């Protein structure tokens, strides 16, 4: 095994375990601020895994959008609420627990299948990864050809969310007589 391969394995090992560790940390911290920080760590270590898949653009976008912009909002709200945040969530309805467990089980089976197939050499040839794979040009082309519908639907969903935010935010409260504001 050459040095480059060892390095890839080492980075993968650290990133994968950081991912798992921070994921567990997100749900086990009782302070929501720490949970949000752990989630940032989780998203960042996912970005490292994307880098190993030679998806540089996705990795940078992941850090920029999720670990950066989205999580800032989380921290903003949590820091403002301070100690007044709700008590830790005690679990949802039973059907939610069943659904979560079966989804996790399905993922686990998939992982075992993939590892088993790889170990017994039954997976077909490795897909060729060209030099431009994961680059901005290629991703842009896919967005506007193969995945155009999903891309457009996502943008409409985001637009609806933005309009909803404006409507909720600009709602002027009526003066109610006898109530001190």
């Amino acid at each position, binding site marked *: 095994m050459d040095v480059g391969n060892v390095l890839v394995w080492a980075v993968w090992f650290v990133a994968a375990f950081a991912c798992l560790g921070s994921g567990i940390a997100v749900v086990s911290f009782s302070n929501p601020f720490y949970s949000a*920080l752990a989630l940032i760590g989780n998203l960042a270590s996912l970005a490292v895994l994307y880098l190993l898949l030679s998806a540089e653009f996705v990795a*940078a976008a992941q850090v*920029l959008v999720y670990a*950066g912009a989205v999580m*800032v909002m989380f*921290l903003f709200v949590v820091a*403002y609420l301070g100690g007044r945040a709700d008590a830790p969530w005690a679990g949802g309805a039973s059907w939610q627990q069943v659904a979560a467990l079966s989804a996790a089980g399905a993922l686990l089976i998939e992982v075992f299948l993939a590892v088993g197939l790889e170990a017994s050499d039954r997976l077909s040839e490795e897909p060729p990864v060209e030099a431009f794979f994961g*680059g901005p040009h290629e991703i842009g082309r896919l967005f506007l050809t193969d995945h155009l519908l999903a891309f457009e639907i996502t943008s409409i969903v985001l637009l609806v969310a933005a309009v909803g935010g404006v409507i909720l935010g600009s709602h002027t409260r009526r003066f109610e007589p006898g109530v001190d504001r």
Partner: protein
Amino acid sequence: MNEVWWVSAIKSVIIVNVVLLSFAYLTLIERKVLGRMQLRYGPNRAGPFGILQPIADLIKLIRKESFFPAAAIDAPYILAPVVSAFTALAAFAVIPWGGGWEILGYQVNGYIIDVPISLLLIFALGSIGIYGFIVGGWASESKYSLLGSMRTCAQLVSYEVALALTVLGVILMAGSLSLTDIVAEQQRNLWFVVPQFVGFVTFFIAGVAETNRAPFDLPEAEQELVAGYHTEYSGMRWGLFQMAEYINMLTLSALAVTLFLGGWHFFWLDWLGPLWFILKLALVVFVFIWLRATFPRLRYDQLMSFGWKFLLPVAILNAVVTAILVVAL
């Protein structure tokens, strides 16, 4: 041609030190220029013309007690300035400052690393750097710090959008996210400041806000918030926050030079790349200081409505018009 790994290592060490030294002297230059603009001398006691002032400041900061509020939350309080300083320094790795040379038979490139997404990388690092300010203010357990970091947060998030959108015009014209490609494209045709003049002005204004500089220095409005998110910091921890702010300003100026002013390229003597780069950088940084001496601070509501109702629409319009022109021409 590829360069040997130890050449890159030596270059990284040199660049980090050059950036740190420029930060130190930037504080002196800023105080001198501000002083002259306000009919004072500025610092002139430490060494001839005060050139040892940054060294004196550094020794003072290092020897000062690193005050630690009893209520502060240990780990985030200590780590926050480190995160900010690290991300600020790391961004310089992808900024090209020369055309590359062959010295003693070894290839030496004019950048430390060239990745196809270097522009995104700088923005990603910047968005992580914000956490240093927010977490530091939160972990200090002080109302001034918390309010300061909330303001920083709101301001940076608002102006980051406009900043990213102004860059879009340049990306569309260059057809690449790599800073070396963008410089090469300007070398072939025209500096982007000419076709992207609106973009340049919007970028600069958003950049001033993004680096918390006057007149957008609301996070540190001393009359209202003492010192913003670093109220409870002192000694070298405070120094790290200052370092992050000044280096962010340097990074942003370097980005402005690279994206709009042709980078290290000039009309002749291209092997002098770093010199041209530093001269252009100095010019942009001087404008930063000039703004601080000239404009009073905006009110918070003015800042927000300016960012969202004026700067953002202009940036969007600029991006759309550029896209149409790039496709049409």
